[in-house]
């Protein structure tokens, strides 16, 4: 049993910190047409991730992702929290059953997460949710795989794709969740869940790039 790579631990930790630091911003975005609590929820989720990381010394990647998912499900059981937890749990399964090494396994993890989130939340691409962002991320990772990009570079491309998807939601009508109750009030602002994904991925990418030569490059194994 190999312990989880330091790159994964650092990426998750950086994403968690970025979400905690963006709590007010996320509350504000969720407040336009939702109930303004996404920042609170994601702070809880971030704390669950950090708790999992603190106890991760001997865990392999799949187990760590699964611990994160279970913790988020317990501590942050809102819509986005439950979906993100589902994503972690599905990613954990995908990773455990794979022989991939780099971008390939990252892509498998995200595709599995997206599948789980869509099964649970029943949102389609275009409904103006974090599914839009995840879908763009999966597409980007597939392209990076084909283009033979390295892990760090692929992560930057994925973060950019999530940001781009977030920008596109500004003009979209929400079709599911709280925001769908007053769809017109959402227009003109980006979807909060999508923005959350972009913030997390941007922080993860920056961290992995910044990781010095002493750290292992691999993210999953």
């Amino acid at each position, binding site marked *: 049993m190999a312990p989880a790579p330091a790159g994964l631990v650092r990426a998750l930790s950086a994403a968690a910190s970025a979400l905690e630091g963006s709590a007010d911003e996320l509350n504000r975005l969720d407040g336009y047409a939702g109930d303004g609590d996404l920042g609170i929820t994601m702070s809880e989720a971030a704390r669950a991730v950090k708790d999992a990381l603190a106890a991760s010394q001997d865990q392999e990647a799949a187990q760590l992702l699964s611990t994160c998912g279970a913790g988020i*499900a317990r501590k942050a*059981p809102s819509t986005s929290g439950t979906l993100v937890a589902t994503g972690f749990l599905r990613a954990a399964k995908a990773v455990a059953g794979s022989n991939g090494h780099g971008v390939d396994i990252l892509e498998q993890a995200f595709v599995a997460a997206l599948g789980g989130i869509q099964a649970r939340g029943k949102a389609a691409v275009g409904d103006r949710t974090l599914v839009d962002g995840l879908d763009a991320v999966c597409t980007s990772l597939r392209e990076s795989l084909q283009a033979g990009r390295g892990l760090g570079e692929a992560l930057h491309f994925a973060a950019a794709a999530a940001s781009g998807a977030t920008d596109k939601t500004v003009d979209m009508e929400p079709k*599911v969740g709280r925001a769908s109750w007053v769809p017109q009030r959402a227009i003109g602002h980006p979807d909060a869940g999508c923005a959350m994904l972009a913030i997390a991925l941007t922080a993860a990418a920056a961290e992995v790039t910044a990781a010095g030569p002493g750290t292992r490059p691999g993210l999953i194994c």
Partner: protein
Amino acid sequence: MAMQKIINEPKAFVDEMLEGVLLAHPESLRAAAPRVIVRAGGPRSGKVGIVTGGGSGHLPLFMGYVGFGLADGVAVGDVFASPSSEQILEATRAVDGGAGVLYLYGNYSGDVMNFDLAAELALAEGIETSTVLAGDDVASAPAGAEGRRRGVAGIAFLYKVAGARAESDGSLGEVDAVVQRAAAGLRSMGVALSPCVVPAAGRPTFSLPAGEMEIGMGIHGEPGVRRGALEPAHQIAEQLVDHIVADLPYKAGDEVAVLVNGLGATPREELYVLYRSVHAALAAAAITVRRTWVGEYATSLEMAGASVSVLRLDDELLGLLDAPCDSPFVVKR
């Protein structure tokens, strides 16, 4: 705006509230697991169990409907936040009497996902569940999109119907069917006159200038359908009833039960002033009110405002509404 609240640490609010409830009502309620409250007597073998749950800050919703002739267990979330699937599963296990468990709660996506997840886990353990969602707020989605509507105070009628049918030993299918029928003929709409403050947030959930009101606002401060100058009670009543009656539509000659619910800070006196005009507006549509509940059945902390719920009756539903029920929060004889 400082928080004019009788609390200790905001973070401890939900757990201290629960401690208080259990100290006050040991003969009625017990904790089956952290933030999982069930009837003290335990499950009656052969009776369908009823599990509900949702965010805190809405008392008597949801915990207040755990009692004889009502629900059997509740998963208690943080203020205005869903409980976890783990809590719901614990509640499900604790109330299972071998006849299956009905999940009855409000249509909020966080709650739906966690109850669905719990249902999958329960089934894996051999406990059959069935789900009825309250989605009674006509302000939250247009006709044709009823499935997207959020649940508000009208769920009080559904607990009453579900609990009474389960006490009379209905099967899971029978309980589910009668509650679905009730839910299909249930409509609500509300008006907010002031926001509330979530302890952990410390700020009002929204701002509403004095002299204004928001028609159709949700019980967590979700934006409503129209904001404007505060109107007299009779105009508010007419608008709420118009929306509700137009939506089902209720027909002349229908018999209904009506709930006028206070959101927290609105005095009982005002609820009766409102009901006076609700009654008149329904009478004008030739709809007869057979039963009336007035009071706080689903609140939003100290929000000012009220909602009106209308339940279309048939003989069975009327009988179930009239059956006794008894929880520390809701008693009918």
